[in-house]
């Protein structure tokens, strides 16, 4: 449909669809068109939001009011200030699972067959997915931060550091989304993708400082917890919002996220190409 140079062997027929070669501008346009579709899907299926925003809110209330007293005991400070950055990270981790799930669904219901038979860049489908999911993750983080403020959480630093906290969690979430994409492209059944996506994150979530201080954990677990990227990103987020040392956990988070992506991105891409 685009007026492009037509190298087809036949004469007197309409030009071929799409561009003869996908340049960088084509790839950007195609990725954004797919990201738009993925965002619209969210509107068509609000259940996705329930999973990624409402659940963490319920979790917060349970932890804050049911377990909070028992967990925090008579430590100095407020468990609320400790818990809510952790919940933000948890929100992010839950939400990152749907990248793989939604890719598996697209393969399952034939949408991917259509996309892969169109003259578009192979990379556009994955990029469009990740771009949409990053927007969804950021939206979830903003909503959770507002919720936290509403139930009495206080940002003790400044706006700039709060924004940095959001961006840092987004970086970690994006790395997890790529891992999720790899899982979703490797396993065929969407339901199995959901379960596997949930299982592999359990040690990552609970063997961390996300919900409880690591100081009461047995030694071997503490070693794991303190090297766990979830601990690092939670501590970074906590300290960026409520004060405390920043450099170490921020650097750790960035290294882990970039490291994870160094593996997950090429693996996901090669899986996608092979299917």
């Amino acid at each position, binding site marked *: 449909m685009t007026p492009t140079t037509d190298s087809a062997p036949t004469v007197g027929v309409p030009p071929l669809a799409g561009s003869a070669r996908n340049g960088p501008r084509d790839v950007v346009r195609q990725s954004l068109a797919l990201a738009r579709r993925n965002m619209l899907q969210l509107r068509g299926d609000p259940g996705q939001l329930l999973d990624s925003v409402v659940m963490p809110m319920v979790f917060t209330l349970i932890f804050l009011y049911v377990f909070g007293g028992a967990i925090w005991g008579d430590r100095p400070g407020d468990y609320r200030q400790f818990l809510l950055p952790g919940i933000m990270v948890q929100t992010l981790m839950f939400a990152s699972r749907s990248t793989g799930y939604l890719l598996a669904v697209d393969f399952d*219901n034939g949408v991917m067959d259509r996309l892969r038979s169109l003259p578009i860049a192979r990379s556009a489908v994955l990029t469009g997915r990740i771009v949409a999911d990053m927007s969804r993750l950021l939206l979830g983080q903003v909503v959770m931060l507002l919720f936290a403020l509403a139930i009495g959480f206080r940002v003790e630093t400044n706006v700039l550091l709060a924004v940095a906290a959001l961006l840092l969690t987004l970086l970690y979430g994006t790395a997890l989304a790529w891992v999720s994409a790899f899982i979703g492209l490797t396993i065929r059944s969407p339901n199995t993708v959901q379960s596997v996506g949930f299982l592999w994150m359990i040690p990552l979530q609970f063997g961390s400082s996300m919900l409880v201080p690591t100081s009461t954990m047995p030694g071997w677990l503490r070693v794991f917890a303190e090297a766990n990227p979830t601990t690092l990103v939670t501590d970074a987020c906590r300290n960026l919002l409520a004060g405390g040392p920043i450099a170490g956990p921020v650097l750790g988070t960035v290294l882990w996220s970039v490291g994870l992506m160094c593996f997950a991105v090429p693996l996901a891409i090669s899986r996608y190409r092979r299917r």
Partner: protein
Amino acid sequence: MTLAIEVEGLVKRFGAHRALDGVDLAVPAGQILGLLGPNGAGKTTMVRVLATLLRPDAGRARVFGYDVVEEPHQVRRCIALTGQFASVDGNISGRENLYLIARLLGVPARRARSEATGMLERFRLAEAGGKPAREYSGGMRRRLDLAASLMGEPRLIYLDEPTTGLDPHSRNELWAMVKERALAGATVLLTTQYMEEAEALADSAVVVDKGRVIAAGTAADLRARVGGRTLEIRPAHPRDLAALAGSLALEGLDGRIDQETCVVRLPLVEPDELTRAVRAVTASAVEVLAVDTRVASLDEAFIELTRSTA
């Protein structure tokens, strides 16, 4: 003559199973070709290879001269795929489905919107255009699927069992749309399990079974392959079916009893068989309600053809 599809010795294996076992095929541009076969014959595998979704293990396939393995991007610029299961996105509206395809094909946003609207109108979906596609009826979904396939004005359209599960009205409507498209110059590769569908739409048909082409030609050619006409003799009482068949056997004719429809059926191959059959009926003294000859249906031809390879 330009060939839209050119396939030589195509092989595709899934483990030990050979889904395609050396298929040759040539489809001239502008034709509607029916690819017929029972479930598991390799029809869908064939379409997926031709749509660059599967790599063949051996052989070559070219679409308008472009090799599906070497130049998949150019192949994709020629084709459109309408899957066995409607591959529209149920979570977004019909309009957004079409808009997405147009944008992916490089149409500027404003024109993409008007093209989507035009397509919705052409496929009688204008009213439902804003609703999520999952709320569409089966017929509407197929129409949307076909509309999405036609967005880029493809030269070659693959229709993989397009009417499976549709009611007769929606089916006829879809057939009319496919014919209209073919009249506009597109080549169509239609896979189907139904001879009737191939007969209604296709210029010619290829029958595949177990990954091989077992017959090719026009509908009339295929019919001729299994004898031209069939004689049906209907006795007044079902109990006389055996007596009729016995009487035919005395004349050296092999009549088949069909209890369900209460007829004895006899394929007519040699010119004198009709006379001999009538003589046998008279000799049997059975009370007969009707003696009909009719042209063998393509479905009978189809069953006959696939049975011989079993």
